[in-house]
């Protein structure tokens, strides 16, 4: 049994909260005492429990009737553990959607059968694609409100498919649902005999998420373990999580900013020695030579394609701060465990997230996504996000407030 993390896009109006509520409710993930509270809160005439309230966490949000933040919800079936990132869909919360999208493997794009493809559908598809989500489920919701019409469904799907040339999804499933009634959510509906596929829960249970294979090793020292005890005087381990690829004992590696060649002589994982470790594993690496490495220093394998060493970075930035980005101001770039100082050297074009077009701009404001060039005080060892997402991303931190003000996706010309 493994985990699937997914995000549902859409607004309250599209039935997003109702769908999440339905998945949690029908998979018995809501406890009876929580149901009691929900029953009390339900204000909809003739409805016992308003399922959309399940995801509505904070009082501030209930007062305004919108989801402001990203909330995480959990449910399991016999086949899989699921983590839902529930993010708001409105354009003024693009930063929250980017945040939610950064942690997931799959997106459910909800489309209201009555309104069809909207600007929002395009925006959510574009953002998901930008953030490297490869799997999508396109769910035409409220199919009951168009009398379970196959024609209407096909019309919407055809229109969605016309957007595909811009998108980078590798797997897309389509289906009609009614989150409110439960059609094709947990079990197949007899109201849509023209739909041959499985219900949405089954699609989620069976969605295959493949870690990219054959990636070069990318590893950064997260924390140096150097016990003070006399018995472990010579112990010096470089702890960290493998960003991509694999590493084995006896591998020839290049380490640190001085790019020193050495050999891996021991790998520890979960308090035992192992011969090989792979992407996602927390390891402690030991090397043959006495090299002074610290947090943020990288490891690569001699045999692999090397990361790009650069003090000048081109990137797409998603801007999160209420204040606009400032040219020549110093920010901090946190690339996994390595933090360097950076100046915004150039502002490029702004990405129209609704239409996948670019336009000239001179400023970058809250929720904007744009191309920028950064100049760094120290070199980073990076990859382009599209080639190696794990080593191709960073966050931008305001040096003064320490707030996370932007997400960076590296995109350098080779």
């Amino acid at each position: 049994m493994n985990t699937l993390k997914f995000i549902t896009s859409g607004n309250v109006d599209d039935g997003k909260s109702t769908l999440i509520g339905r998945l949690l409710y029908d998979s018995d993930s809501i406890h009876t005492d929580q149901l009691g509270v929900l029953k009390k809160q339900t204000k909809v005439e003739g409805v016992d429990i308003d399922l959309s309230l399940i995801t509505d966490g904070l009082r501030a949000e209930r007062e305004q009737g919108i989801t402001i933040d990203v909330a995480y919800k959990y449910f399991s079936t016999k086949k899989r553990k699921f983590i839902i990132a529930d993010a708001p869909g409105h354009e003024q919360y693009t930063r929250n959607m980017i945040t939610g999208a950064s942690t997931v493997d799959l997106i459910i794009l909800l489309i209201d059968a009555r309104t069809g493809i909207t600007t929002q559908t395009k925006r959510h598809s574009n953002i998901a694609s930008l953030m490297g989500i490869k799997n999508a489920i396109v769910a035409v919701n409220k199919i009951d409100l168009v009398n379970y019409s196959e024609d209407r469904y096909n019309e919407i799907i055809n229109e969605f498919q016309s957007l595909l040339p811009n998108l980078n999804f590798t797997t897309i499933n389509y289906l009609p649902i009614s989150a409110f009634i439960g059609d094709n959510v947990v079990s197949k509906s007899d109201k849509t005999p023209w739909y041959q596929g499985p219900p949405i829960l089954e699609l989620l249970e069976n969605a295959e998420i493949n870690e990219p294979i054959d990636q070069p090793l990318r590893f950064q020292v997260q924390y140096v373990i150097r016990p003070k005890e006399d018995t472990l005087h010579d112990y010096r381990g470089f702890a960290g999580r493998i960003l991509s690829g694999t590493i084995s004992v006896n591998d020839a590696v290049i380490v640190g900013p001085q790019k020193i060649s050495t050999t891996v002589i021991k790998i520890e994982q979960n308090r035992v020695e192992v011969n090989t470790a792979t992407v996602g594993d927390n390891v402690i690496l030991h090397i043959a030579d006495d090299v002074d490495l610290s947090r943020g220093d990288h490891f690569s394998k001699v045999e692999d394609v090397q990361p790009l060493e650069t003090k000048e970075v081109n990137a797409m930035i998603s801007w999160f701060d209420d204040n606009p980005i400032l040219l020549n101001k110093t920010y901090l770039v946190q690339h996994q465990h390595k933090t360097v100082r950076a100046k915004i050297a150039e502002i490029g074009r702004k990405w129209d997230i609704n239409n996948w077009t670019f336009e000239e701009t001179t400023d970058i404001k809250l929720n904007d996504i744009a191309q920028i060039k950064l100049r760094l005080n120290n070199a980073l060892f990076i990859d382009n996000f599209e080639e190696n997402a794990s080593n191709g991303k960073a966050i931008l931190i305001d040096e003064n407030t320490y707030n996370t003000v932007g997400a960076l996706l590296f995109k350098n010309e080779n």
Partner: protein
Amino acid sequence: MSKDYLDQLEDEAIYILRETAAQFERPVLLFSGGKDSIVLIYLALKAFRPGRFPFPLMHVDTGHNFPEAIAFRDYLVDQVGEKLIVASVEDAMQKYNLKETPGRFPSRNALQTYALLDAIEKNEFDACIGGARRDEEKARAKERIFSVRDDFGQWDPKLQRPELWNILNGKIHKGQNVRVFPISNWTELDVWNYIKKHNIELPNLYFSHERECIEFNDKLVATSAFIQPKEGEKVIKAQVRYRTVGDMTCTAAVPSTSSTLDEIIEDIIYTKISERGQTRLDDQVSEAAMEDRKKQGYF
């Protein structure tokens, strides 16, 4: 081929613990004696051995603990050989002239905040690692892995930093501190399955045993130095276990004959009521109770 979900959760937690050790000067691991913080200690062993923990453990002691929980705390601390700090809620109550909630089942839950904030200030802790999980409660569902608090310990849900991918921003100003939640993405069932998978030792309170209880609002409350039966009130000998280990004054026991991890896991799968709803006598006052307490600096 992808990993088992328990290994994925473990990987994430170890990563967060190491990130905390690397980014902060003076972290501390809050240890309650409950199953979630016992799991945290097990994870810390995996993250830092053969080195020592780069942080002490701290127990915020309400003075209303189960003796079994305190005994287990001391046993475990001794086993791992790490440093334990005890922050006393009773000291804070005297110092600040605080009163526990009135009534028969007095709660010092909210008062823990005073002892915690005092200890943070005295020891200059800049990061407190805790075992809170997002599935516990609605207000927790939006909690960050690194949650920044001001020097009043306050949490402002509207002003949280965005958390992208697994890149954690622990930069703070003097006076601020960060609450760190390595097992954010675990559910109650995940915790039990993990305990079973790694055969992690727990206080016997969690397993079925016989205990003298009184019945109150359909909940079983153990009699103790703090809770005495009223005149004419029936004391029953019941087979119970604890689903959460909080204060003796406000934690209800669950009738159960489950004495093995397998049986407990079975129980939890078929239980239709939440952990907090079933066991906390003090959490149901208002549906936003947790949100309010967190804003005031509660864990």
